[in-house]
């Protein structure tokens, strides 16, 4: 799995590629934790290149949502593939997260 982080003062995009599972999710967690420690107002996780995600990946994203929520930040997910979307549906988390079709939309929409 590869994690690329691009950020400025107000926004951060974490682009993930590869499978997100028990082995690889700590790397994604590290990126999310570092950005939330800096209290970046908007964090977008781009999952365009993720074909597989298990519960440890989903749990990491839930943690990201909770960490950013503590400082009233915004945590968004973009570009879910159908296989990953299904995991969110099975875990009934599709209504919990702010999910966007594209990274651009996730960055443009004003915080709710």
């Amino acid at each position, binding site marked *: 799995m590869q994690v690329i982080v691009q950020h400025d003062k107000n926004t951060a995009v974490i682009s993930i590629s590869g499978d997100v599972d*028990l082995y690889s999710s700590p790397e994604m967690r590290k990126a999310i934790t570092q950005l939330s420690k800096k209290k970046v107002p908007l964090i977008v996780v781009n999952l365009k290149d993720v074909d597989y995600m298990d*519960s440890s990946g989903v749990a990491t994203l839930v943690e990201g949502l909770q960490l950013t929520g503590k400082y009233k930040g915004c945590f968004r997910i973009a570009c879910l593939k159908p296989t990953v979307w299904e995991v969110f549906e099975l875990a009934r988390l599709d209504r919990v997260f702010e999910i966007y079709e594209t990274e651009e939309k996730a960055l443009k929409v004003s915080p709710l």
Partner: protein
Amino acid sequence: MKESFDIKVPSNPRMMQLVRKTIAQACEMVGFSEREVHAVTLAVDEGCTNIIRHCYQGSETGHIVIRVRLYDDKIEIILRDFGDEIDVEKLRKCVKKMKRKLKRSGSVRPGGLGVMLIHSIMDKVHYKTSQDSGTVLRLVKYLSDAREKEIASNSTA
């Protein structure tokens, strides 16, 4: 039963990719749809992940034996570990609690998702655990038509 095979893997998260590929191919041989193949693979991955985390406490020196049985109408996967005994009753309560929590949007917590996913995906989930011989997790998934027949036969029994 048409075919059966066993694989034994170390309790190392790195091995899960290999397990997923094997299970996906086995599901394809039975005739599951692409969506079902993904779901069953996920359930088995979650079972193995729970074994690594809870039965072996993250240690990579343990082993997981995975027995796969292929039938005309279903796949049966048996995961066996030789680690710590699990509290089956506590697990059942955890699943019930998780399902209740997930009904309330926004009240989600990271823990327990794996077990909840296994129960959502598989048609049959059965645990057998003991202090001496570890835990056996039996998972069954029917092909769609066979599942309807199974439900019908259970309701008339």
